[in-house]
């Protein structure tokens, strides 16, 4: 479980990378566009806070009940 939690950006949705054909991109990008992605990626790179422990236990518990 810990492994999945530390999974950084990319993962299963790699095909949805930035810059796909129907997105605005290219040399016309304003200077702040990179900052927006940095903001998003800075959160992606954070480890999950301890407050998520209860959530994980809850998922585990209900999963066990279903088996």
């Amino acid at each position, binding site marked *: *479980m810990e*492994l*999945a*939690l530390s*999974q*950084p*950006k990319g*993962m*299963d*949705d790699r095909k*949805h*990378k*930035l*810059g*796909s054909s*129907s*997105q*605005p991109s290219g040399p016309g990008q*304003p*200077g*702040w*566009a*990179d*900052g*927006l*992605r*940095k*903001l*998003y*990626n*800075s*959160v*992606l*790179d*954070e480890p*999950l*806070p301890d*407050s*998520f422990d209860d*959530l*994980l236990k*809850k*998922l585990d518990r*209900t*999963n066990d009940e*279903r*088996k």
Partner: protein
Amino acid sequence: MSASDRPAPLNPSDAFKDHLLATLPHLRAFARGLCGRPDYADDLVQEAAIKAWAARDRFTPDTNMRAWTFTILRNHYLSELRRNRHQADYDPEAVERLLTMEATQEDSVNISDMEAALQRLSPERREALLLVGAGGFTYEEAAEIGDCAIGTMKSRVARARAELSVMLDPEREGPAAVKVPAASP
């Protein structure tokens, strides 16, 4: 080791859970951008994750988990906004202070400035820009998540980009940047 390195789980619920857990960082990033407050964003993520878990029988395997959970999170966030539970915590003066701070990083735009500027956008435009400009969704996917027409999503993104350009890059863009194709909000 990443999720893809592990053996495939045998139980469908295990597979769903792994997929959901791997999506949590993206949900956190999306929620942080939406509401601008780390603690509240994490509350939203946890509540969305529990809703997703409860509705896991309705998720079609091999479809886009990130889009599905983002939809759950934004719907939950909007219902919270409507109930007005957290809007009182928004402090426009604090945002203004952040915006007038001098950049101390080498980045062209300070991340704090970006966070503050995002919060000055309307919720619809902020969501649109986060989905397309940061989350990497196509307009089509973003429109589905935001429950609007593709043209509306494009318009929201264009307007959000124009507004941010004026706020964050005024010398380059100038006031003319706010001129975007007329469409719904």
